[in-house]
């Protein structure tokens, strides 16, 4: 059993390890290690296309994580007072959003957005009061942020709600009993109590967006995120530069995940 488990882990992680290893390759072959070097990192970081894609990824991840955290937390709070069938329906929808394969979400989002734009753009033209050309909605930053934000919101809801479930209800009563208004109680008790969950949700939402290739591939329009850039470069062959980018993305994601876990753990201990 342990050998079997070991084999599974090796199968999962060796390819990732190889990517990280070959990112330090001195030569330019992806299959032959020719000595240690960090030159490919330098090359990747000075490549304007890479830096452009990195910037796009970073701003999309930040914006969608902020939106997802804000609306996800609000939804989690609101769902506290929803019960019965409605609650069940919401729970099901949230878990479906997390479990549906990325490709389905990607295609569905693309079709939905294109259809929506097809409806809205003629209306925009019709009601535009100025002489200049009416703005047209199209795929790009906005659609990326919206799609990532929407699906990361489900993650945030789940994490914040788990945190709220672990919170002692009598703390809220105690706060009210001591004279705090409902808003005062929210600000002084509820928010500090669920804050680790909110922060962890933010980090996971950020990672979700930063890592995502499939949804971005469909809805990015003319924008290129880092994973999309990596995918398009790979068609010209795997170079150590790609390995270096992949390793950096991996490092950022791992750091975020570890930070999120640490925050949740510490918050759990304090509560």
């Amino acid at each position: 059993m342990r050998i079997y488990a070991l084999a599974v882990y090796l199968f999962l992680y060796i390819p990732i390890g190889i990517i990280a290893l070959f990112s330090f390759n001195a030569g330019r072959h992806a299959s032959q290690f020719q000595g240690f070097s960090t030159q490919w990192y330098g090359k990747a970081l000075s490549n304007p296309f890479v830096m452009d894609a990195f910037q796009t990824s970073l701003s999309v991840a930040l914006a969608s994580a902020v939106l997802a955290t804000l609306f996800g937390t609000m939804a989690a709070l609101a769902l506290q007072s929803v019960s019965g069938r409605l609650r069940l329906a919401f729970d099901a929808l949230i878990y479906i959003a997390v479990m549906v394969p990325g490709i389905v979400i990607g295609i569905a989002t693309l079709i939905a957005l294109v259809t929506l734009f097809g409806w809205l753009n003629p209306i925009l033209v019709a009601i535009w009061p100025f002489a200049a050309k009416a703005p047209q909605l199209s795929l790009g930053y906005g659609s990326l942020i919206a799609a990532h934000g929407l699906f990361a919101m489900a993650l945030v809801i789940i994490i914040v709600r788990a945190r709220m479930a672990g919170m002692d209800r009598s703390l809220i009563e105690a706060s009210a009993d001591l004279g705090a208004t409902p808003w005062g109680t929210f600000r002084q008790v509820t928010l500090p109590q669920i804050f680790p969950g909110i922060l962890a949700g933010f980090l996971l939402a950020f990672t979700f967006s930063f890592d995502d290739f499939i949804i971005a591939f469909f809805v990015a329009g003319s924008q290129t995120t880092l994973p999309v850039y990596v995918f398009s470069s790979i068609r010209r062959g795997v170079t150590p530069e790609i390995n270096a980018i992949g390793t950096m993305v991996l490092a950022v994601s791992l750091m975020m995940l570890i930070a999120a876990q640490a925050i949740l753990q510490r918050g759990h201990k304090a509560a």
Partner: protein
Amino acid sequence: MESNLKPSSETEDAPIAELREASKHYGAVVAADGLNLSIRRGEFLSFLGPSGCGKTTALRMLAGFEAPTSGDILLDGQRVNEVPPHRRPVNMVFQHYALFPHLTVAQNIAYGLRQRRPRPAEGEIARAVDRALETVRLPGFGPRRIWEMSGGQQQRVALARAIINQPKLLLLDEPMAALDKKLRRDMQIELQTLQRSLGITFILVTHDQEEALSMSDRVCIMRSGRIVQMGSPRKLYDRPASRYVADFVGKSNFFSGRVTAVEAGRTELAAAGGHLIAGGAPVEIAMGQTASASLRPEQIALHRKGAGGNTLPVTVINRIFLGEHTEYLVRNTDLGEFLVLVSRQAEAIEGEFEPGDQALASWQDGAALILGDD
């Protein structure tokens, strides 16, 4: 002169809080059923009863966490049914303390003062916190975190957090349930002392009769959402109105039977085997009714021989040494097993009884109480 200027609700003898026909229903479940109660200014009152008897519901209606389904809650003469908890001059010590884990001890205690508008000056808050810590004998503990405090210390912090607001009522919801026995005893004495020195009206909810009897001025015994009897601990012990109360307050032996004679100050009950037990009836009881005779273990004596009324032949089953007293479990062939508490003095005369010994259990005329069975 001055009393004319004050509204009548602020005079000394007006109740500080009242429940008037207060009921609370949760769907078909009746948690509180027409509670009528008037709470005196500065008293220590306990709600005593088993879980689910409505004592916590009564407390939560006073705090404002539950609105009565019907009836009224009055605080200082004002109807407060719709007043939310944060606008009631009432504070609560929660069962598991409900201290804010993200705040320090001092911040927890200052919480109530910081909610006031206009907000008191920081220096004033700090002084009040220090005074409160002094009062609960935790001076210097202000900067500590909550999880660094022991259970007993957390309880004191919860107390300080409540009394700093000088509430009209201090509500205590089973505050000692999480403490070990020794600590609980100390805390009971401390609470009682504190209540006297502060002059705040304390309302305690507990299922621990010893706690209720030892601390309170008055005890309110509850059952199935109703108040069964209310009075001083001594009155409840000496003159319980029903078998339920006698059973809940102190230990007692009960012998069921039928009432065979009712005279002035003397009611007679025929128990199993035709044994006649006579005694007083705190609540009037009709001839022929089924009832119970209640005899406290300390009211029964054990003898080797003797005769006369109020005597039952028994066999000693078990003996528990309690220090100043010895508790014997004895059995009468007709009436079954019951407890007898024998003092050291009495034992010195009669000697110790061993399990298996034959003895005579006797009690003085009028010691028994004849009580209705509800």
